[in-house]
């Protein structure tokens, strides 16, 4: 496993300390293996965030900067007092403003958000944690480099090594004829690094002569669920029970991890019968210009103890029907709007896969402008070529449920409930005009 390294800096938000903050992040990023260009982008993002904190949000107050290397990306985390921080600048749709000093500085945050591959905002007590992530750059897979695929009948299931992971990614590209696969599946080196970092695990079916028959990947347990990818069986004449044995290995590995569910949104060459429950499906636009319906499946890893979920009244009929169909005991609690003061601004994070024309929006903060912010996102993402647009709502948080009217108004429809998808049950919405010409 790749050692995970973290370096920490504690300082105060003074302009004079800017070189300390940027120097710290730049040197850390380079030491952690980012190329000059990526390290510079992270450094510039740091500069914008730091100056914003110095001048607008937390002048003179203490903050911490943590630089973490995971093996395939560098994360720079800022921890500071939340009061006064304008998260709205981290909306993909935020536009530069030069009306006053504060607005100009928010433009800096906007620039920071665009300089990195992803960001995350979280609140711990009075503190905000802003994490900027910059990925290493990897070459795309060359499927021609995959070895010949042969039927494999006598095999063992075991954990692969890094080279086997890369080879299997090339074999998936070449032999599995998938119409839909995760973005990172195009980059064998990246998958190998994620695997080496311990953020991804795998089970490989391999025979005594070293012929690889199939593979299943799953993510490290974080939160409540584990995501699995596959199984990918490389030859149609391989042993029929191979997919089930790969899944058994996965289940044995995660059975006592504390995870409550196993989710499959990328079924590879097909799931074996009896392992999963289908929760629903989403429509994706494929590279060959067609729409494909992809099922999402899950299984719990332990006994369902029941839970309370928060929902807007408009979503309750859908939720009740879904919970009834899945025999899931849930107490649905209503969120209401009764004239109380709300935040002015909403913030969404967006994960986008440009080559596959899809994006998923996740709420970061809810405000009065939710409908407008959503509409802006839809417009912008459509302009960027996104055809399949999704929205994930975690029912554990009442504030997320408040997005419901804005979603329905903007043409999103609930597609399915994923029990304990992140921390609570997750409703997956899809923008319903996605099939329009």
């Amino acid at each position: 496993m790749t050692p995970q390294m973290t370096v920490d800096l504690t300082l105060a938000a003074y302009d004079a300390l800017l070189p300390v903050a940027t120097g710290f992040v730049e040197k850390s990023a380079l030491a952690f293996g980012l190329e000059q260009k990526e390290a510079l982008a992270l450094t510039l993002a740091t500069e914008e965030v730091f100056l914003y904190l110095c001048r607008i949000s937390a002048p003179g107050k203490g903050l911490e900067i943590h630089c973490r290397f995971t093996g395939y990306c560098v994360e720079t985390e800022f921890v500071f007092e939340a009061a006064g921080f304008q998260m709205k600048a981290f909306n993909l749709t935020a536009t530069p403003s030069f009306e006053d000093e504060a607005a100009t500085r928010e433009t800096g945050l906007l620039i920071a958000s665009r300089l990195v591959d992803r960001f995350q905002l979280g609140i711990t007590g009075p503190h905000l944690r802003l994490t900027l992530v910059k990925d290493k750059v990897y070459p795309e897979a060359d499927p021609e480099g995959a070895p010949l695929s042969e039927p494999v009948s006598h095999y063992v299931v075991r954990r692969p090594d890094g080279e086997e992971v890369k080879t299997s990614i090339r074999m998936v590209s070449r032999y599995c004829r998938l119409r839909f696969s995760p973005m990172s599946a195009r980059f064998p080196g990246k998958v190998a690094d994620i695997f080496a970092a311990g953020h991804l695990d795998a089970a490989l079916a391999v025979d005594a002569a070293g012929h690889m028959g199939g593979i299943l990947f799953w993510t490290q347990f974080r939160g409540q669920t584990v995501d699995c990818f596959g199984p990918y069986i490389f030859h149609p004449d391989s042993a029929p029970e191979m997919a089930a044995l790969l899944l058994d290995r996965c289940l044995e590995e995660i059975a006592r991890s504390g995870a409550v569910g196993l989710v499959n949104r990328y079924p590879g060459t097909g799931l074996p019968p009896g392992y999963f429950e289908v929760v629903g499906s989403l429509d994706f636009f494929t590279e060959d210009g067609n729409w494909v319906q992809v099922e999402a499946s899950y299984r719990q890893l332990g006994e369902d103890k029941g839970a309370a979920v928060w929902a807007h009244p408009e979503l309750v009929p859908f939720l009740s029907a879904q919970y009834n169909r899945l025999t899931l005991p849930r107490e649905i609690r209503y969120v209401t709007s009764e004239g109380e003061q709300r935040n002015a601004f909403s913030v969404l994070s967006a994960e986008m896969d440009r080559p596959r024309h899809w994006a998923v929006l996740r709420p970061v903060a809810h405000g009065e402008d939710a409908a407008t912010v959503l509409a802006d996102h839809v417009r912008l993402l459509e302009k960027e070529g996104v055809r399949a647009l999704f929205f994930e709502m975690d029912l554990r948080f009442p504030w997320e449920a408040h997005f419901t009217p804005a979603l329905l108004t903007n043409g999103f429809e609930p597609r399915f409930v994923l029990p304990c998808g992140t921390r609570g049950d997750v409703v997956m919405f899809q923008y319903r005009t996605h099939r329009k010409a």
Partner: protein
Amino acid sequence: MNPFFSPGRLLPRYIQTFEAYVPSKPDPELMKRYGCTRLYRLNNNENALGPPPEAQETLRQFPPEKAAVYPSGDGFYLRHALARRFNKEPEQFLIGNGANEVISFVIKAFCEQGDNIVTADKTFAVYEWVARFSGLEARLTPLKDFGFDEEAMLGRMDDRTKILFLCNPNNPTGTYWDQARLCRFLDRVDGRAVVVVDEAYAEFVEAQDYPDGLSLMETYPNLVVFRTFSKMYGLAGLRIGYLTGSTEMVDAVRRTCIVYSVNRVAQDAAVAAVPADGHVLRTRQMVKEGKVYLHRQLQALGLPFVSGEGNFLMVRLPFSDTLAYRKLMTHGVMVRTMTGFRFPNCIRITIGSMEAMECLTAALGSILGMDADEHTSR
């Protein structure tokens, strides 16, 4: 005050990766959520007959004012009762708040950072859990024919192996090592490590060749035996169990044991339960009849099962065990899912009253019937 304090930073690395265990909700809450009006608990291998009548009487007679007085810190009267029963010294017994606590005592007593324990992958989870959240390596060996594999266990031993855990009979497969096999294993371990034999279900076993671990500890001073009052003696709600070994061994473990952890009601009830042979016979009879019935019904339903010693059996389903749990709960039957025991798509069923067994098999039949038409399992 440091404004950036976060308790997570103080946690050892091996604890940071752990999620807190969330226990099941109380029965009335579960019944409300699943919409059932009565609930058969077939999930924890509890005794449907309850505690022996002698223990029940003791519970009824417990003077409430005695709740204000600390109990015996080391289960004085219970240790003497066990010593009389098994013809040993009271000092050879250590009482714990359920068998889980004595597992912790032994691991704490013998293991330090860098040490490891060896056990099976598909057995009672607590040996593995306690080792892992103590920062120790748990070396797991695959079962062979649903039973512990002595060759595999010996093969995983090294000079940092301190304890080998054997669940005999094994939960959840019901397999057991006979006397000859256990002695052969102990001979080959040759005192290099502590051998713990967990006999939580010993009182259910009628096989003649089942070893009585308590009789072997004079020959094998590295042997420790766990037993519990939670299963056969129906005192699970009071949390009381014990370990026994040579005086020297128990002295060693006692150094890490928490005194006063077992309450007085539990101690008194256990003392009354020790000689309750009639209760043991009645329970065995109920289990025997339940198994005969269940074997027949499961065969009729076309469900493969593993049934050995103990008051439980394990059934393989054609769909997810966790889905089965939810559906059975709506029929008022609670079973134990086996994914956590690394037997995906299997459930473990406690053998209980005939009424419960009939309700279970009717519910299973109903679910299997539904399976063909309407439920969503793939």
